[in-house]
């Protein structure tokens, strides 16, 4: 009986995903409409998980899977990222050899600004991410750049996220620069395109496949994906950046990841962050 029920459920999911795969504006410059996409995504998840409040999607898989939520709430009582936030604060406040510091590179001294990233930089004609500007701050001040995936860069980013908690994401796609919309579109296409030997798109797992088991793994909803980064993953035993996670997901689908902070990954982050507009910044996060 149980098996029959699961079967029915799966068929329902399969056909629902055919009808509404969330993205619902076009895939070219004439028809793409970021705001329509964002609303379609929220509606898709409202229909899939009617019990879950939109605001709760900042909690990833725990927003929709009651089973693992309890364990996670216990974990959050003694957050595994606490040490990293402290370390990040220390690094943030340690002056460079020339006497300047990170606070000199950012708006508002770098405090409470995480939710404004990534943003479209018109002068440079590209999407800028927080980690990218942390490293630019270093090289502008004659310091060596940090490695992208983990360690000091993630700790500094975690501290900056910490000072921005509860601020609402409001990623802008300036109407006066078509290139910004093109960057969004590039990220969107990347998210929906199938790739790798297993022929999987991000959407296969994080829209269609949300909260359905792939062996022992439960993919999270794409809504809210970026809000809590950087993240402390128990599997890593450490803090890691969003682009590190992107690499991991590429490997899961047997495709070769791009390098962190390449233009396409920054565009993907731009697209994903726009999808989370209206949600609060809650980094750093903790995940299994």
């Amino acid at each position, binding site marked *: 009986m149980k098996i029959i029920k699961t079967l029915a459920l799966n068929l329902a999911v399969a056909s629902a995903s055919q009808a509404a795969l969330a993205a619902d504006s076009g895939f070219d410059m004439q028809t793409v409409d970021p705001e329509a996409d964002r609303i379609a995504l929220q509606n898709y998840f409202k229909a899939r998980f009617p019990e879950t409040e939109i605001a709760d999607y900042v909690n990833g898989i725990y927003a929709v899977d009651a089973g693992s939520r309890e364990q996670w709430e216990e974990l959050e009582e003694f957050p595994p990222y606490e040490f990293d936030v402290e370390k990040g604060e220390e690094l943030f406040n340690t002056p460079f050899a020339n006497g300047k510091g990170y606070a000199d590179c950012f708006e508002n001294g770098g405090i409470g600004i995480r939710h404004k990233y990534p943003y479209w930089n018109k002068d440079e004609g590209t999407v800028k991410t927080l980690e990218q500007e942390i490293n630019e701050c270093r090289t502008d001040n004659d310091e060596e750049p940090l490695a992208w995936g983990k360690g000091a860069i993630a700790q500094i980013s975690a501290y900056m996220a910490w000072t921005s908690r509860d601020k609402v994401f409001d990623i802008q796609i300036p109407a006066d620069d078509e290139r910004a919309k093109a960057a969004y579109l590039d990220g969107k296409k990347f998210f*929906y395109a199938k790739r790798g030997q297993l022929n999987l798109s991000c959407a296969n797992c994080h829209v269609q496949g949300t909260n*359905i088991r792939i062996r022992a793994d439960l993919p999270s909803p794409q809504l809210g994906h970026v809000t809590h980064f950087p993240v402390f993953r128990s599997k890593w035993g450490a803090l890691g950046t969003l682009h590190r996670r992107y690499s991991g997901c590429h490997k899961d689908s047997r495709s070769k990841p791009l390098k962190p902070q390449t233009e396409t990954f920054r565009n993907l982050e731009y697209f994903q962050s726009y999808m989370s507009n209206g949600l609060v910044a809650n980094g750093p996060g903790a995940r299994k």
Partner: protein
Amino acid sequence: MRKLTTSFCTVGLLAMFTASPVVADNHAEQIALGKAVYMGKSRGNCVSCHTIADPDAKLAGNQGPPTLSMKARFPDKAKLRAQIWDATKNNPLTIMPPLGKHWILSEEEIDAVVEYIYQF
């Protein structure tokens, strides 16, 4: 949903029509191979998405329908084989990988996994 950018591997389409199901002289061996394909993480890894009433199936996922009543649901074995060879033919957006088309499994392994699941 409008047009999606789909990356295609066009090679190997012919194989689908030319490969004839191998008549194994040792059926038990073929079944064992099929089972290894079904369970193996670096092979078919079918178990990651399909539950099956084989006591050796550990941590089965449920992205796809359970593997049961195969004979009744696929009286035509060739249709079953085609689904495994390239699931995107029936559903371009499917999460199920095109195991034959993308050379994840050999033709022999696909025949074997068909025989193995046909028992359930």
